[in-house]
Every structure is written in C-alpha cells, then in structure tokens.
C-alpha cells in the first residue's frame, strides 16, 4: 500500500533528523532538574539560612549562572538537549547505501565574530511617535540579569512577529496635596503597545497561534535595535495589571484602563531579535542564553550615542538557543517553586 511505502521510505531520511529527534530527552531534562533540586537541598543543609538558598546572588546563584555553560561544555548536554544537533556530518555510508546527499555537511560551530550589517532581518518599520517615546520616560534603571525574570514574576516567554506598534495616550486625574489639600491633579501618561502574533511559547501556558497585546511604559529607542513592526522577537512578559499605576495617588477620574495586562519584563535594553535564518541576536546580559556557541556581533551600524551596545550583542543559532532556553526555563521554574 502507498502509505506503507511512505512509512518505509521515511525510514531512510538523513541521520541528522533522526539524531535531533532522539527520544528520551525529557528524561535527561528531569535528571538536570533533580540535580538542581539536590544541589538546592545540599545548600539548605550547609547554609541553613533561607537567605543563602533563595537569594539569587548567593553562591547558589553564582553556580546557577555558570552551570549552563559548564553543563553544556563538560557533558555536551545542557539540560538533556544536545547542544550540537546536526553538528556531525551526515552519515550516508551505512546499511542502505541509497540515501542521496541532499544537504551540505555541517561543519563545527563557528564562533568567530560577525558584523551586524551582515545579518538579515525581515523589513522592520518604526514611526516618529514611537521613536520620540523615550523623551518622556528617561530614568535610571538597574542593569538586567536573568534573575530579574524571577524577581519580576515572569509570566511567559513568547516568540512572535510584531504586527502593530503604537503609542497610547492616557489622560486622567488623581488626588494630590501638592498644590492644595485634596486637590485634583490632571495627569497624562503614554505607553507603547505592541501587537504580536505569537507562534512559540518558550515558558508559561502555550498561546502559540494567538495574537496578543503587550503594553510597556518604556521603550528602547535606538533605531537599529528597537522593536519594529514586521520583525520577530523573543519577549519575557509579566502581568502588569488592568490599569496604569497612579504611583500611590488615589484615582479621581479619566481613562486608566490599559490595552493589555502584560508588559515586557525589561524594556530598557534591546529585545532578543530573530534573524531571517532563525538565529537569535541577543544582548549578553542574557547570560545563560549566550553561554554556549555564541558569536560576538560587531554593531557596525550603531550611532555613537548607543555605542554602549557596540560589544554587548551576540548571535546564537536556533538549536543552541532552544537548548539554553530550556536550561533557563528550568531555573525560572525552580525559583518559582521555592519562592
């Protein structure tokens, strides 16, 4: 029968596809989970204090950051996922001797630097209103690290294409004693709203296929690295709430209902962007995601004003990204569990 022939011939596909889908990866993932749980248990016994165990910046936290790289490089298996899937040459010299060579053999991972200008992204659009956004929201913020994900109660990490991007204006009143007792102060706040067609959920309940809104009170405005309509990004989200915050003042009227309950966890640095060939352009402050097989990206197109990011971006291939993201997600889950 035709379908029997098809099933039989699928058996002769390239080895790299067979290897990349090897079953039992979840079992390995569990082992890493157990390893971390065991490590945490040991720390509990040794350190006694809850501070030592649950604070991200304790020695436990340090080993947390390093282990992704160590795990992957030492045993070649970060969290049970092969960090080099397809890294071997396709094996066509076996029993069938019939499989045509259809793909160029892959070489070892190239970790040499790459120019930003050589990367291909989907066409992206910005508008002047969005670019001008930061002027009303400049402030000092602490540096990002992956601990922020747990501290800010990461709700989801999604990947998708931005299909719309606009500024929303709020005008509302609050009670304030600034000028007179129980006076009413007229206020305005702007937010930036992203509409995203989600096609992958890295963490949290799966919403792949949904189009969602994300609303941020800040925006990374460097034109090269800013989030643009038409491009793909990976965004960590938290639940902001139904209404904009009135910073401790009592609400006295006007529109404070947000477009979206969700915000980006750290909108102050470049978001993770996906290239046309499925690689990920990532700021290095994502330490786990950039721990293995990362290529430095030379930002040869940045304005001088934003030269801070000149040497702080790198490129990671899709398979490594997936592996390292699974490591990161298991850590978020770990910290959520013991929060």
């Amino acid at each position: 029968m035709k379908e029997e022939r098809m099933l039989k011939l699928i058996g002769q596909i390239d080895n790299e596809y067979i290897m990349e889908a090897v079953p039992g990866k979840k079992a390995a993932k569990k082992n890493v989970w157990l390893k971390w749980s065991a490590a945490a248990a040991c720390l509990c016994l040794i350190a006694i204090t809850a501070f030592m165990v649950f604070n991200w910046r304790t020695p436990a936290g340090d080993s947390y950051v390093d282990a992704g790289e160590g795990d992957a490089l030492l045993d070649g298996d970060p969290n049970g996922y092969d960090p080099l899937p397809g890294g071997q040459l396709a094996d066509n010299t076996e029993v069938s001797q019939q499989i045509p060579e259809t793909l160029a053999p892959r070489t070892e991972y190239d970790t040499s630097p790459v120019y930003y200008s050589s990367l291909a992204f989907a066409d992206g659009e910005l508008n002047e209103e969005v670019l001008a956004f930061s002027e009303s929201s400049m402030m000092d913020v602490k540096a990002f690290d992956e601990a922020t994900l747990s501290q800010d109660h990461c709700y989801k990490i999604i990947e998708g294409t931005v299909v719309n991007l606009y500024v929303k204006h709020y005008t509302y009143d609050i009670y304030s004693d600034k000028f007179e007792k129980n006076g009413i102060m007229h206020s305005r706040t702007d937010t930036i709203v992203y509409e995203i067609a989600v096609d992958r959920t890295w963490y949290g309940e799966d919403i792949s296929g949904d189009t969602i809104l994300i609303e941020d009170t800040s925006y990374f405005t460097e034109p090269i690295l800013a989030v643009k309509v038409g491009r793909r990004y990976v965004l960590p989200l938290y639940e902001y709430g139904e209404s904009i915050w009135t910073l401790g003042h009592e609400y006295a009227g006007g529109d404070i209902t947000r477009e979206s309950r969700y915000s980006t966890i750290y909108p102050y640095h470049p978001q993770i962007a996906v290239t046309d060939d499925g690689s990920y352009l990532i700021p290095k402050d994502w330490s786990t995601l950039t721990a293995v097989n990362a290529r430095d990206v030379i930002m040869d197109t940045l304005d001088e004003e934003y030269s801070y990011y000149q040497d702080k971006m790198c490129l990671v291939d899709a398979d490594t990204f997936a592996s390292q993201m699974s490591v990161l997600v298991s850590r978020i889950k770990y910290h959520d569990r013991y929060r």
Partner: protein
Amino acid sequence: MDDKQIVDLYWARSENAISETSKKYGKYCHYIAGNILHNNEDSEECVNDTYLRAWEAMPPHRPEKLSAFLGKIVRNLALDRYKQHTAKKRGDGQVPIALDELQDCIPASDSATEGIDDFILIDIFNRFLAGLPAEKRKIFVRRYWYLSPIKEIANDYSISESKVKVTLLRIRNDLRQVLEKEGVSL
C-alpha cells in the same frame, strides 16, 4: 565507550562489539522495535537480529552515527516483521494509526509520475524536512520515524496533545502539496 571504539571492535571482529552495542544502544533499539511491534518477545528478537546485521555490515561499513545506523536497521526489521504478522489483520502498536495518518500525504492519483523511484522520494522527504522549523521536524520524525505515541511526544516537548495533532496534520498537508507539486504519485 564511544561510537568509534565500538565500530573498531566490529572491524577487529571482536565479540565485545555486540555486548558494547547492546549496553549503549539496546534500550534505544528496543524503543523503536517496541513502538512498531508492541510485543516484548518480537522486539527482543528484532533487536538481536539488528546486532547480527550490524556484525555483517561492519566491515565494510564504518558508520559515523552508530545510533542512526542501528536505528534504521531495527526499524526496517521491525516493519518487515510487523507486515508478516499482520498480513491478514492489522496489529497493535502505533503502525496502523500512523499508516492511517500518512494517507493524508498521498497525492491525488492523477499526478504525472507513477511508481516514482525510492531515491527521488527520499530526496524529496529530506528537502522537505530541511525546510521545516526544527521543532516541527522533530515532532514529525518522532511520530513517523520513531512511531512514538502522540501522548509521549506531547509530554516530551511540553505541549498539548492537540497541538501535536494539529502540527502533524499541517505537516502532512504540506508534504502532500510538495509531492503534488513535484508530480509524484506513490
């Protein structure tokens, strides 16, 4: 022991080759045979036959990926055995369900080329798989190469069973369109 050392044992005609193979890849081979045959005794025989075939094939072969090499042998042997056992009646396991699903990929019979060569079809499969995102490709290969149950795939990739089913349905439809475009009739 790494794959190269095991292959060297075969080339040296050392009997340890089979025990080392069994130690490292026995479980893997059993998994593949078990999904197809759904019977421990048959699976065990199939896996033992696989070691024998490997012994006969090395030398002259020197596979770079021993697991895929063994996997292909055990999968072929298990499918042959499945066919013998179910000449009159389809058996248990994932094969009958997977065969039903694969009917979605069969192009309409009025396509140009009847009885297309195996090599060309395998080449089309490989090119099709190369164009799929890695996650989708893994789901497809788990289902139709490893014959893994839907529930197990969903569990391993932390997605819902319905998501696995929808993904597979879309891939099958896409594959059928590719085959139709290439003028293929099975």
